[in-house]
């Protein structure tokens, strides 16, 4: 049992409810406990920094200080990529110099050492402990899922702050998906911007950003997109409808790619049902049906694989037996007086 301090973020009980539900389910299954930081507040996200950098550092630092008070030895987990980026940026800022730390302390007026570690959920599931636990618990491998792992911009950048995965071709989510039996596709938009808040300010031009993500995922053979950020998920899952409408007008085929949180798919692999995992409240209504369909296909594939493996083993055995027989015949041949030339 590993316990983390938990920073849910504002989307946890709204647009990101599926993320929260599925993460809860998976964590419970593999023995991870998330203890909510009492009185946590808004992380400030990118908006606070636009108002003032001080505000942008003060808001997350307050929650960091509260987490320290709760238990300084535990890392904080922030499932939302925006929260993760804001918290980690504030932490790195405070750790950079004594003056910075002093400045933050002055602003939040609390004891603060900038000592707690900040992690995102991908990091948590990338620990050897979590991976081992997942491996043991997986009951329904996702063999029919060809997923495009979409990390978004905030999880891996800026490199100086995040320092956890490759900024151009991150692998942590791919590894986790592979572990769950899915096939992560090789594609090029893992860390491209989804348009984030621009989708509300200038929706039409920003939709291109989402469209090209879908397009590249589809072109590279994915049948689903997987995310680790509530805002990315919402932008993709909610706005694909409008994009498809526009594409229909332009005579282009619609995208048929459900968007999932990686925890939802993990949950499926661990035997969770769509309702428990929150898959039933997606914007794209086909998600639960997709899951059912693919789970069935996966089971089939697994069955076929088992049969194929058995057949392969049988063949090998046969070949070995033949070889042994030949050897023996040869040995006898050598000993017989007429052997050799014939």
């Amino acid at each position, binding site marked *: 049992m590993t316990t983390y301090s938990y920073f849910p973020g504002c989307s946890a009980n709204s647009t990101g409810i599926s993320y929260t539900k599925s993460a809860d389910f998976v964590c419970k299954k593999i023995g991870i406990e998330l203890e909510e930081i009492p009185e946590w507040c808004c992380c400030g996200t990118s908006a606070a920094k636009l108002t003032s950098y001080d505000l942008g550092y003060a808001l997350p630092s307050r929650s960091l200080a509260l987490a320290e008070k709760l238990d300084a030895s535990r890392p904080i987990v922030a499932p939302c990529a925006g929260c993760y980026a804001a918290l980690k940026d504030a932490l790195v800022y405070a750790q950079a110099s004594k003056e910075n730390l002093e400045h933050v302390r002055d602003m939040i007026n609390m004891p603060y050492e900038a000592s707690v570690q900040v992690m995102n959920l991908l990091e948590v599931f990338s620990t050897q402990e979590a991976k081992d636990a997942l491996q043991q618990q997986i009951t329904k491998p996702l063999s029919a899922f060809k997923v495009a792992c979409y990390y978004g911009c905030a999880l891996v950048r800026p490199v100086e702050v995040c320092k956890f995965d*490759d*900024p*151009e*071709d991150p692998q942590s989510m791919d590894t986790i998906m592979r572990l769950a039996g899915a096939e992560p596709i*090789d*594609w*090029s*938009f893992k860390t*491209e911007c989804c348009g984030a808040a621009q989708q509300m300010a200038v929706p039409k031009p920003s939709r291109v950003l989402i469209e090209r993500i879908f*397009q*590249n995922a589809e*072109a*590279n053979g994915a049948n689903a997109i997987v995310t680790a950020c509530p805002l990315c998920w919402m932008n993709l899952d909610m706005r694909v409808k409008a994009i498809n409408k526009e594409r229909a007008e332009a005579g282009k085929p619609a995208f048929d790619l459900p968007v999932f949180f990686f925890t939802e798919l993990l949950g499926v692999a661990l035997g969770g049902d769509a309702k428990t995992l929150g898959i039933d409240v997606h914007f794209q209504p086909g998600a639960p049906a997709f899951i059912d369909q693919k789970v069935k296909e996966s089971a089939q594939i697994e069955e076929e694989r088992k049969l194929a493996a058995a057949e392969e083993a049988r063949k090998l055995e046969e070949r070995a037996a033949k070889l042994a027989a030949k050897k023996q015949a040869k040995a006898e041949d050598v000993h017989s007086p007429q052997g050799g030339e014939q």
Partner: protein
Amino acid sequence: MSRIGVFICYCGSNIAGTVDVEKVAEVARTLPNVVHAETNKYTCSDPGQAGVKAAIEKYNIDRVVMGTCSPRMHELTWRKLLADTPVNPYMLEVANLREQCSWVHKDKEVGTAKAIDLIKMAVAKVDKLSPLKSTQIPVTKRALVVGGGIAGMQAALDIADAGYQVTVVERETSLGGKMVMLDKTFPTMDCSACICTPKMSEVGSHPNITVKSYAEVESVEGYVGNFDVTIREKAKYIDYNLCTGCGACTTKCPTKVINNFEQGMSARPAIYKMFAQAVPAKPVIDAEHCRKIQENKCGACAKICPTGAIHYDDEDKVTTERYGAIVLTTGYQLIDWKPLYPEYGGGKYPDVITGLQFERLVNASGPTEGHILRPSDGKEPKNVVIIKCVGSRDPHKGVAYCSRACCMYGAKHAHQFLDKVPDGRCFVFYMDVRTPGKGYDEFYMNTLQDGAQYLRGRVSKIYKEGDRLVCLGEDTLTSAQIRIEADMVVLETAMVPAEGVDKLGSMLGVTRDKDLWLTEAHAKLRPVETNTAGVFLAGVAQGPKDIPDTVCQAGAAASKVIGLLNHDHLESNPQISRVNEALCQGDGACVNICPYHAITLVQKQFRENSQKITRTVASVNPGLCQGCGACTVTCRAGAMDLLGYTNESLMREVDALCQW
């Protein structure tokens, strides 16, 4: 008892204007051991010099103080003068009465007082100097050229044509370097092979040139005129005396190995000639991939060889020979862009190629016989994107410098593509277009006329969609986001020094700059010399440059080598470090500090208290020591001293100036 002569110059009114020269001479006469002091209107003139000579003879002078202009101006003049007299040329001290006295002070009283002090200092110092003799260093009249690219070949030919023996050491199995891989050369578009391969055969057949291919320099000992160089020739497994170069063996070899000469775009057998016109025109066996050598199977090549030239038990040949001069022409390699640019696919997409790969694609003797076909599916690309400065001028990812040739060969690639694929489109992303050179800008303008579209900006991302490569970038002149669906992308990548040059440099005491380019002795005035006497450099080894500049520099290096080899002997600078072996502890602090590797520790026998003992002491190589004196200060025992600037003479000078 020394007999010092002091000669003070008026320098017209240059010195005399601010210094009472006669008064200085008068004071000089009173200084200890000064037997004579005189003044002269212009000491450096013929009558002035004659006067000095006469006085030396008349007063039996054995050391001299010249109170004249700066030693930087006339120290050598005075040395030459003294060489004609019984006085040793190094028993000389120049008091700088002009540049550092009369010209910087206006008050005559002040100037005179200072001049007297400067003379006192010089007299004190010269009193403690001892005669020095330069030694004669013999010159071995042979040169070694390291690297058989165009720079090395040019240098070797120039030196050999002057009548000296030259050995060319080439790491690859053939001469030619990078130039022979190129298709055409800008701006004249003459075929690279047509101008490079004749040079190769000229080098290969020159009576004064020995080519050691598939070989590397293993170690270097010695100094200018006398470098003992150990060269390792890797086992070729073929007796070149028997081999006729028929090539039958290469057709029978069953092994396929990635062909590096073709930039990995085709395969070659394990027994191979690097390319058709290779010099030496005989194959070698790549032992690492040969089945016979690795697993003792196959042996097809030996069976087919009509002359029995193949020996699987061949071994490396290590030879040590003496050379008088060394020319380093080690050239370059292209930067490994793959780990640096994951946004360009990091090597994931076979159709994102380097400029050198493009050269092979467009070359008639290349893997596609000159048809521009993309590596992934062999289709002819219609949209090609060329990205310049990949790795260059990008200190964040690659190197900070400009690789200098890429603007031109980028334009050449665009031109060649549009020439061979008339319905194709070519986009060139650039940061700047730098075309200084004869006919260069005209060439670039022609490429624009051909229809190449130049876009000022960088490509931020290349990704694959279907079978096309999408390039996202920006045209910074119009601030437009650019999205180009390309069939092939050519990266004009940065030049970086050839592998192993760092080791070679430290072996020879040749410094490398922060990017590991070999450093010339002076950026402007000694561009082909290095800090190690007798070692010269040419070509890209010194820094990125194009073929004309490389050939120029090779010729310059060759002329320096010829000038050196033209001497039977060299005179060494006698103002070098000297070890007092009685004091030396043999701790080697001086060995570590010497930038010229001039000091070594040796075992020497001594007689102490009528007993023979062996001690470790430092030994200075007079051919290598340049007389900087760093070792003298580092020696804890005070056993090191610098002749001409001895501790004692400098301390006397300090004493003298303290008395003012």
